[in-house]
C-alpha cells in the first residue's frame, strides 16, 4: 500500500501543485487558443492526455536504453520530438482504424498536439525525475490530466466572460490573460499542501 500512496502523491503533485500550465507555464498557446468552448477544451485535453501518456512510454525506453547508456543526451530534444510526432501519427492511425467517423470528429485536435510545448516539456521533466517505468507513466498521465483540468476550467470561465460586459479595450485576449493570471494565483494555493 505504501507504493500506491507514493503514486497518489506523485499524481497530486504533478497535476495540481506543479501544474504544467499554471506553475510551469507550458502549453500556453493551446491554453489560450482552444479554450473558447468547454467541449473543444475537453476534446483537446483528452487527445493531449492520450498522446502524452503514450509518448512517455517511448521517451522512457529511449532514455533508459539508448540516450543514457551511450551518453547521447545532446540528442534528447530531437529524439523526444520524433517520439511525440510518432505517437501522434500512431494515435491518428488507431482512431482511423477504430472508427473513420470518430476520426473525423476528433481528427482536428491531433495535428495541434505535435506543436504543443507542454508535450515536450513533460517528456523532458521525466528525465529530470529519473523515474521508473510506472512512475514515469503516471507522472505523464497526471501532468496531462492537470493540463486538461485547467483547460476545461479556463474554457468555462471564458464562456462566462463572453456573456459579461467587458470594457472594449480589455475584450478578447487581454481579459483572457488577466483571468489566466488569477487562475494561476488560485492554483498557487496548492503549493501549500503538505505531502509528507
Amino acid at each position: 500500500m505504501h507504493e500506491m500512496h507514493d503514486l497518489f502523491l506523485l499524481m497530486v503533485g504533478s497535476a495540481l501543485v506543479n501544474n504544467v500550465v499554471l506553475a510551469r507555464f507550458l502549453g500556453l498557446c493551446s491554453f489560450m487558443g482552444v479554450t473558447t468552448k468547454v467541449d473543444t477544451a475537453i476534446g483537446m485535453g483528452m487527445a493531449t492526455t492520450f498522446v502524452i501518456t503514450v509518448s512517455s512510454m517511448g521517451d522512457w525506453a529511449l532514455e533508459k536504453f539508448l540516450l543514457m547508456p551511450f551518453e547521447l543526451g545532446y540528442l534528447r530534444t530531437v529524439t523526444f520530438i520524433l517520439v511525440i510526432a510518432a505517437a501522434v501519427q500512431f494515435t491518428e492511425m488507431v482512431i482511423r482504424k477504430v472508427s473513420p467517423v470518430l476520426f473525423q470528429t476528433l481528427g482536428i485536435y491531433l495535428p495541434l498536439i505535435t506543436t504543443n510545448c507542454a508535450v515536450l516539456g513533460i517528456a523532458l521533466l521525466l528525465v529530470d525525475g529519473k523515474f521508473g517505468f510506472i512512475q514515469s507513466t503516471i507522472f505523464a498521465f497526471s501532468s496531462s490530466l492537470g493540463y486538461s483540468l485547467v483547460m476545461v476550467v479556463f474554457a468555462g470561465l471564458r464562456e462566462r466572460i463572453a456573456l459579461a460586459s467587458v470594457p472594449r479595450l480589455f475584450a478578447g485576449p487581454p481579459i483572457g490573460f488577466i483571468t489566466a493570471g488569477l487562475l494561476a494565483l488560485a492554483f498557487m494555493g496548492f503549493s501549500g499542501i503538505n505531502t509528507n
Partner: protein
Amino acid sequence: MSLAAGERSCNERPPSEGVLETGGDCRRAPHGAKASPHSGRPPSEGSFDLIERPVRVVAVERDTVWFEAEPGGGCGACAAMASCGSGKFGGGKPRRFEMAGAPGLRVGDRVILGLAEGSLLRAAATAFAIPLAGMLGAGIIAWLAGGGDGETALASIAGLGVGVLLARLCAGRLSRRGDFTPVVLRRERGER
C-alpha cells in the same frame, strides 16, 4: 458586448444568418437550432445543442456524399495561422469523409454540418479514455504484482492493445446508433 475577431459567441448570432464562416471550427449553434429537411439522421440523444463545422461537397455517389472539411485547426485558426506550427503540421490539410442519406447536395456546395455536443465528448471518451484506462490499469497491476520495469512496460502495451479493441467495439456500437452522425444544418449552393 465586443469580442475579438474569431471569438464571437454563438449566442450572439441570429439564427437566420446565412453567411458561412471560413477557417473557423467547432461553433455551437443557438439553442433550438434544428436540422434542415436536407439533413440526415438526427442525433439519437435528441439534444439540439450542436457543434458546427463548415465543409464542402467534393463528390456525390448515389446516396453517399463525400465532404471535405475546410482547413483550420482545432484552435479556430487565428490571424497568425501562416506562421503557426500547427498549420505546418497538417492543420491546413483537408480531411475527407463520407455521409449517407443527405439528398439534394451537389458537388461544390458548401454546407454547415452539426454534431450533437454530447457526441464529441462520447467520441473522445471512446477513442482515448478506454485505451488509456486499459494501459494504466494493466501497468499498475503488473507493478503491484512485483514486476520490474520491463514486465510493467509489456503489460502496459498489452493493456493498450486490449483497450483499443474495446474502443473499437464501443465505437461500432455508437456508430450504429447514429451517435457520431452529423446532420446538415445549412447549405450554400456552389458554382457548377
